[in-house]
């Protein structure tokens, strides 16, 4: 495969992106994390990376808003390849049908999750009953047959791990809730049908790549905040359910 040519258009885009980056507020970085979080993006045989800039942008937002440090780029991982556990946070996206995983991939993912890993599943096509949705559900059921997908209740700690959230974000709002598979009281797999990646995706020029419908930019901000909360949940689990936090959170919610 020939290397891509550097066209005038892409050169100008890169230049503009560099200037925009310089103009942005300094990232909240007192010290560079010795072990930044490297989100593993699952490579599968379908369209596994429909929103190439999404995780990069989420990492940027995490660094700007929180003390979480991520690697500049997500790391593509294959479920059946060694090294999966180096990435306890996995991101599985797809646009259109998800080809079935191999047994080895399924077993590796199951083991990953059972030992404490976290999987965010994002339907980039915003499908419901067709496309990605129709194929990922049975696949998840095969990975964790004893943990069926179930809606995440609004009172779940996921909605207060960093931001206090009371609604869903995404490029679309196919479902106004998230679904999850739980292991030992912990959300091991979270499934969004609302194309979170589509709301996060931003071009090098600084443009949001996809409009968010029907809520527009507030819906996008909610999607970003949900992404922050998801990352916080992956790293801190139910920390915000600790008794010491409850009085503060109750005060702000009233």
């Amino acid at each position, binding site marked *: 495969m020939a290397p891509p040519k550097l066209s005038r258009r892409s050169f100008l885009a890169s230049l503009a992106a560099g200037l925009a980056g310089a103009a942005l507020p300094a990232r909240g970085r007192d010290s560079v994390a010795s072990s930044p979080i490297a989100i593993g993006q699952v490579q599968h045989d379908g369209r596994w990376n429909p929103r190439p800039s999404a995780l990069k942008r989420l990492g940027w937002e995490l660094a700007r808003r*929180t*003390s979480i440090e991520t690697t500049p780029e997500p790391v593509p991982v294959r479920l059946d390849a060694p090294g*999966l556990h180096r990435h306890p946070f996995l991101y599985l996206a797809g646009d259109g049908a998800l080809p079935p995983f191999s047994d080895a991939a399924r077993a590796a993912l199951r083991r990953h999750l059972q030992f404490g890993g976290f999987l965010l599943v994002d339907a980039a096509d915003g499908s419901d009953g067709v496309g990605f949705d129709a194929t990922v559900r049975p696949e998840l059921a095969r990975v964790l047959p004893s943990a069926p997908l179930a809606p995440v209740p609004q009172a779940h700690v996921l909605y207060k791990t960093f*931001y206090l959230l009371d609604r869903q974000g995404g490029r679309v709002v196919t479902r106004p809730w998230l679904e999850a598979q739980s292991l030992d009281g912990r959300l091991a797999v979270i499934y969004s049908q609302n194309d979170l990646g589509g709301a996060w995706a931003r071009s090098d020029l600084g443009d949001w790549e996809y409009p968010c419908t029907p809520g527009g930019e507030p819906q996008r901000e909610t999607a970003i905040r949900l992404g922050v909360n998801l990352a916080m949940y992956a790293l801190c689990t139910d*920390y915000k359910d600790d008794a010491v936090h409850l009085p503060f959170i109750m005060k702000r919610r009233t």
Partner: protein
Amino acid sequence: MAALALTWWGLRTEPRRGRRLTLLALRAVSALLALFLLLEPAVQLLQTARSRLRFAVLVDTSRSMRFPIEPGGASRAEAVAALLAGQRAELSRLAERVDLDWRGFDAQTAPADVEAAARGLPSDGSRSDLLGALQAAAAGPGRRLAGVLLISDGADNASLAGGLTPPARAELRALGVPVNAVAAGREPPRDLAVERVAAEEFAFVRSSVTVEATLRAHGLDPGPITVVLRREGAVVAQAVVQLEAGQDRYQVPLTFRPDTTGTFVFTVAAPVLPGEAVTANNQRSFVLRVIRDRVRVLLVAGRPSWDERFLRGLLKQDPNVDLVSFFILRTNADQPGPQDQLSLIPFPVQEIFGPQLKTFDAVVLLNFNYAPYRSLDIERFLPNLRDYVRGGGGLAMVGGEQGFGEARYGATPLAEVLPVVPLDGAGLAEESFRPRPTAEGRRHPITAIGAGEAATAAAWEALPPLEVLNRTRPLPPGSGAVVLLEAPGLLVDGQPAPVVAVREVGAGRTLAVTTDGSWHWGYLAAERGGGDGAYRRFWSSALRWLVRDPELTPLKAEPDAPAIDPGASVGLSISLRGADYGPAPGRKVAVELVAEDGKTVARGEAITGADGAARVELPAAPPGAYKVSARAEPVPGGPTETAATALTVRGAGPEDGDATPRPELLSAIAELTGGDFTSLPGGGLPRLHQLEPEVVEIGQRRELPIWNRWWYLAALCASLGAEWILRRRWGSW
């Protein structure tokens, strides 16, 4: 009678009443004499004697008889001896009629003699059992018991301690003999005593404990006194009691919160007031074992990370851990948006690093830098954290870009307690390495993850490599620090950099894990099919070691009982485990019994058996509270293992604790059984009621006829003849 009536009827014609009566009398005499001769009466002769009975004299020989019979007076025992000496004549007369059965009594009865009793029997019994003594006297050998003379202060602390209960009355009645009593003492002496202390055997650390003390005060002036509760010399609680006229018992609750686990001697002490009869009863000691409910751990993380995620998950899952977490989720440089849309709380630095710090068993600083949060000024709490460790706390510092030298901890007071020297500004070593256990690390419970040293070394070799290391330097020998894991290829000052090190510092312990990658030993290792057992075992053992989990204490010494009777030897069970935490046979363990004043009162030693266990018997110690200090002879190059526990040797208990005489009890016994009662001082012997002796037949019976005397017949003839003559003369035919 019919004959007499006929005679009277036959004389109806006789007009003179005198003649009629005379004739009637003569006829009656004749009839009686005839009847006597017809019945042939006899006298039966029987030889009899009165049986000799036994009379018990019971003299109280319990220790309470040492108390003065009145303020400033002689002892009760001396007063009793004087009474008996003065009444010897009376007692001698009594001895002529009955067998005197002299006995001294306390918890048991023992034969005595009159001479000894008059001189004064030794008063050293540890209990007073009046009913037991009476029953023993009743059942005693020899003649049947006719009565008892009971001489005592009445301070029963056995079955009559609660007075004459219905069962006690029934048993006293069943004796069937009068009990005559002499009460030695009427009024309680001037005394303040800690009569009783009600405390649980166990208490939970940092949980409120209330000890209920009962004070007894007699003859004291009204006013306030201060009662204190001491733990091995240090006052942990106190209460002011207002003494009132007419009240002799006071309940004093003493509440405190033990802040250290272990077995301790506690003492409730009341002041010694002028003129007290007894001062030994002004304090009372007991042993309390302070244990943990759950291990309370404070986890502070400088940022969310996988190291934090997996350690929190491990600690949260442990039902024995009460985890309090604080993670820095944003810094001042972060821009998350409006505060009211966040779930974040201010970092409660004042609360957790201030007064609340000592409520934690262990503190884990995970990739946490104290410096960036200027408004919080965490630095001012670092001395407090250092002192927390020296005072017995556990501290773990876990690495990362905010740990050790990266946060310049080397220039802080924490450096004084850390198990490694943080190299400030030396930078992180970011290269792959496999930590290797040191010689100590292959045996230490934290890093001995295999069964044996070779297996441990192999297990560490098999774990996934680490990629980040904070550069630190080992502390010199003698600092109490030991490196357990080191990075073979990463040299600092020419020697491998420590990865895991521990230190005993003051009463506390510290742990250094100079990497933020310990989660690799669990989650990464699990990918290869080995599970995350090494990670779990490492951190679980580390926590238990930090908080001095008794299960990880190699040497244990347990007394057979926390409170031992006076005069009894002190039995101790010893168990010793080696560096591999298996039984350590053939090791000498020396044990000392140390009194509250620091003096060693007994020593002993034993060699551990194949199971690492041994028994030590120490000689009896005087009443009081003692620390038990055990020390195992170290193996060459090994650490000296020590253990400490505590026990009390009881005082004489109620005999010394309660100086109150109970004349009313003795009086009630006498009244119930039909005896008499007097009291000392002033009184003499009571009138000694006793059962009458029985009459018994001895020898053969003999019959003597009394009718066959000639004068009976002559008298009959004379009376009949006289009647005949008179009738003839008076013409009464």
